[in-house]
């Protein structure tokens, strides 16, 4: 498998003023992102997610460590790397005064997309991101979700094989977040490598092939979602929903120490004559793993980002 990103000992230290110790925002991290995968970078605020993206995209110089992006050395080949990556920052930052169409054309002009391809490509992107009707609307007049979609479209305008998405669904409503997740899933289907930072665990669980969890500048776990789940100490639980003759419901849970069947048999012995309405198997979620690794609850992560927003969305 070819690597899209290879990072070794990447470190970023910020000076924080006189009489204060320097801040090690990223502290000697190592990881590899394979070509064509959606790689999730999870962590609470201040964990080092954005600092890592800024280094890998050339916005900030690493204090130490090496990185190769698309096979090119970050230190020596930055202009060539920049030409082949797309970046969607946390805030939608296109030009308010330009129309949706002009913003896309400008993105292509900057990256050297041939003149003949620009306009047709811009039209295709507008359709793909459901912005066809807003073609001539200034960026300033688009809704939040549309701005986000157009910012992603602009990052894809020059056909980059690697895209960095920094908190793409933060602050979006459920429908827009769901649409965007669909678009990100499509990118993987097209063979684009996606480096995705998010604080929505559900989002990472649905979209990512592999996930790295970063806490205080250190990567504390890196695996597939299934791998992370299986490494969690929590066991699979069987939950039975019961109802008595008055219709009152009750739930009973038991851990699967000797398999699911044995757990169900054990629960059936505790019904006390009540009707069984449902039996569910509850596997440890990425949230359970995250809580175990970071000591933070998912709610804390969400409240740090100002609410649940797109995090609740399915799809």
């Amino acid at each position, binding site marked *: 498998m070819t690597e899209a990103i290879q990072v070794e000992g990447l470190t970023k230290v910020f000076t924080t003023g006189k009489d204060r110790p320097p801040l090690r925002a990223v502290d000697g991290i190592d990881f590899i992102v394979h070509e064509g995968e959606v790689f999730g970078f999870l962590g609470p605020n201040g964990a080092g997610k954005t600092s890592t993206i800024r280094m890998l*995209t*050339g*916005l*900030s*110089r690493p204090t130490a460590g090496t990185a190769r992006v698309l096979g090119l050395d970050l230190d020596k080949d930055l*202009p*060539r790397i*920049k*030409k082949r990556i797309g*970046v969607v*920052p946390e*805030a939608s*930052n*296109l*030009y*308010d*005064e*330009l129309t949706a169409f*002009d913003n896309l054309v*400008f*993105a292509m*002009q*900057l*990256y*050297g997309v041939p003149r003949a391809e620009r306009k047709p490509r811009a039209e295709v992107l507008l359709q793909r991101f459901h912005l066809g009707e807003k073609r001539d609307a200034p960026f300033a007049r688009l809704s939040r979700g549309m701005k986000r979609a157009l910012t992603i479209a*602009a990052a894809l305008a020059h056909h980059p094989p690697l895209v960095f998405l920094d908190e793409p669904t933060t602050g979006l409503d459920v429908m827009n977040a769901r649409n965007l997740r669909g678009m990100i899933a499509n990118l993987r289907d097209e063979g684009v490598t996606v480096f995705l930072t998010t604080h929505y665990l559900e989002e990472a669980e649905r979209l990512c092939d592999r996930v790295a969890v970063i806490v205080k500048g250190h990567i504390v776990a890196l695996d597939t979602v299934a791998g992370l789940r299986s490494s969690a100490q929590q066991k699979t639980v069987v939950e039975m929903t019961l109802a008595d003759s008055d219709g009152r419901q009750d739930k009973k849970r038991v851990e699967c120490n000797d398999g699911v069947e044995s757990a169900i048999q054990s629960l059936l012995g505790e019904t006390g004559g009540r009707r069984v309405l449902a039996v569910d198997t509850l596997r440890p979620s990425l949230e359970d793993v995250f809580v175990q690794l970071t000591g933070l609850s998912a709610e804390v992560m969400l409240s740090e980002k100002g609410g649940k927003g797109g995090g609740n969305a399915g799809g």
Partner: protein
Amino acid sequence: MLVDDLRGMFYIALKDLKAYYFKAPNISWGILFPFAFILAFAIRSPGDLHALVPGLLALTILFGTSSMEAIVIVFERRIGSLERLLLAPVRLPALLAGKLLGGMAFGLTVTLVVLVVSLTVFGSTGTNWLMLVLSLLLSATAFSAMGAYVSVAVREVFDAQTLANFIRFPMMFLGGVFVPLASMPVWLQSLARLFPLTYAVEALRAALSGGSWTTAVLDVGALAIFSLLLYLLAVYTLARHTE
């Protein structure tokens, strides 16, 4: 890489002209402001209006290039869109050159309108055209670089406007626009030599009155040095601020 830089410069300038510069209020302000100043001065001291033309042109370039230039970068940094340019395959000096080019193109366009009106009213006899073009180009570069430096040196749009005016207004009154340099006390003349506007006015005066290159070469050279220094200072400051 050079091709990427040149292309980036061109399209950044074009984008700035479209997004910020060529807006009705900006155009009218760019033309009216210098005219209003000159008119006020002419009413106060009626005399040889022809002698005010070099100052009028220099003021038009100064305000045309630097007014928007001084806030464009700080504004884009504030809303995050400067990051888009920093992420693009365009090196920082080229990015800033693109910004300068936008300011220059607008300033020169507005100045062209004033120049045409002035030449229509006062005639063009004795004009050294090559010297005029060179003086206009170098003045536009120096003032645009000055605006860019102001824009990268501060963090807020309001601060950029304040700093730009703090530099421009003393320059306007000491730069020989309204009062000939020779009639000022020696210490004020020395102070005036620190401002690019002084050289712009002198170079334009020489160009419009068919002056010789022997005297104009100093003014043109000074404008070239101001352009280079201010541009390099802006590149250095932006590089420090973006890390």
